[in-house]
């Protein structure tokens, strides 16, 4: 069982009104922003389930946009997210999808486009009490919480890539808490996700990129 801290009970410190619909939404977008391949020009949110039905009454839209701009759950700028985004020249759009029923109740898809035209789509779920998880990157189903220092390696599904990743980690004496592999199909794009107890060093991404089969590396650090 995961450790329950006193601050899991007395917390999160958050802009209201809802830990799942406001704080959780903000946390998902904040994680997505940390994964973005550069400063964003535009972002499109698709809301599902309870998010789709009740987002306005819970400020879910403001919290999502705030998170995308790097605001944490306790950032008092969240209610002003729309104005701040316009000032920063960040285009944003919210779409509601109430047709999709086979989906977790509080789910959002975040489609990001950087100023250089790169794109990334991330799906997140708000699990209650401010807890969240990322369940999809582009078209691949994944699963991580962002509570740990997290390394996401996008690579070709080829022998030896995972060995390369673990070698880079062990060379720096890093202890892996969790390691998971996901892929689209055999021989196609694969995702290796490593969660570490300690803080992963920033230079680890560069080392891992040295392998020819590695397409991209993201490092998501907890607050």
């Amino acid at each position, binding site marked *: 069982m995961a450790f329950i801290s006193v601050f899991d009970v*007395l917390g999160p410190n*958050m*802009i*209201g*009104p809802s830990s799942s619909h406001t704080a959780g939404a903000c946390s998902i977008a904040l994680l997505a922003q940390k994964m973005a391949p550069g400063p964003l020009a535009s972002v499109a949110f698709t809301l599902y389930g309870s998010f789709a*039905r009740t987002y306005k009454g819970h400020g879910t839209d403001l919290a999502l946009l705030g998170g995308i701009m790097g605001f944490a759950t306790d950032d008092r700028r969240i209610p002003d997210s729309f104005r701040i985004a316009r000032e920063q020249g960040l285009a944003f759009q919210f779409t509601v999808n109430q047709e999709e029923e086979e989906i977790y109740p509080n789910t959002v898809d975040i489609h990001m486009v950087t100023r250089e035209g790169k794109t990334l789509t991330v799906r997140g779920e708000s699990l*209650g009490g401010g807890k969240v998880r990322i369940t999809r990157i582009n078209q691949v189903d994944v699963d991580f919480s962002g509570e740990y220092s997290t390394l996401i390696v996008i690579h070709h599904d080829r022998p030896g890539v995972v060995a390369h990743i673990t070698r880079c980690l062990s060379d720096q004496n890093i202890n892996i808490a969790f390691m998971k592999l996901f892929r689209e199909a055999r021989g196609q794009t694969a995702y290796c996700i490593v969660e570490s107890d300690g803080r992963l060093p920033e230079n680890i991404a560069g080392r891992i990129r040295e392998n020819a089969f590695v397409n991209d590396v993201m490092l998501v650090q907890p607050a």
Partner: protein
Amino acid sequence: MDFKNGAELLELCQQYHCPISEIMKKREWELSEARPEEISAKMKTAWNIMKESALTPISQPRKSIGGLIGGEAHLLNRRREAGKSICGSVLSRAITYACAVLEVNTSMGLIVAAPTAGSSGIIPGVLLALKEEYGFSDSAVENALFNAGAIGYLAMRNATVAGAVGGCQAETGVASAMAASAAAELMGGSPQQCLCAASIVMMNTLGLVCDPVGGLVECPCQARNASGAANALTAAEMALSGIRQLIPFDEMLAAMYAVGKKMPPELRETALGGCAATPAGCAFSCQKK
């Protein structure tokens, strides 16, 4: 150091001759990766946010997003200051502050979920009222928050604090149990009396459903926070008087969880039953759409 239930918590208190707050602090020191001074600083921040959210709406009332609440703390405070309160000073302050925090929460202000956003008014309400009335220092209250955290941790671990799973008894009920235990320790009660107070609250809130009008954290949530504060003070008063209860805290927590799981989905945060399904509640929901 860790404990899985209230009985183990009491054993640790006895073994180390210390209050519940101290055991919870030791547990956090040992099991989290944070240093003791970081943990104390974090609790100080939490208490500062709690105080601010309990006091600001008295002078600056704000309307909620859904428009169902706003200004209640100001009204309650005016009545108390005019010497008209029928509750007396402590209870009047506690319900004022509890309502205030919900005003802040529903107008997108900064609060501490305790244990949830919808039940965030009860702990600040009770503890700030006691601090003002009896002159406790901020650090004494920050200590008491560790006591509240111990109760909340047990509820999270062994039952639930989610309205969608266990109804309002799991949210405002647990918040009130946390506040009752913390209040008992702050007022000099023993660890047994703290758990007794928490147990009394769980008895008195058993079966409370989660039925937010329009699916918003406004009505009846704010009133439930006020009554949660009253429940906490009542239970702490009984426990501190030396009144004993038949049912231990662990068993009440299990009973709450069992009752929660038997609640139909309509009464678990779906806004399909209870207050939400009344003609007035439905009329509001339709008008919002």
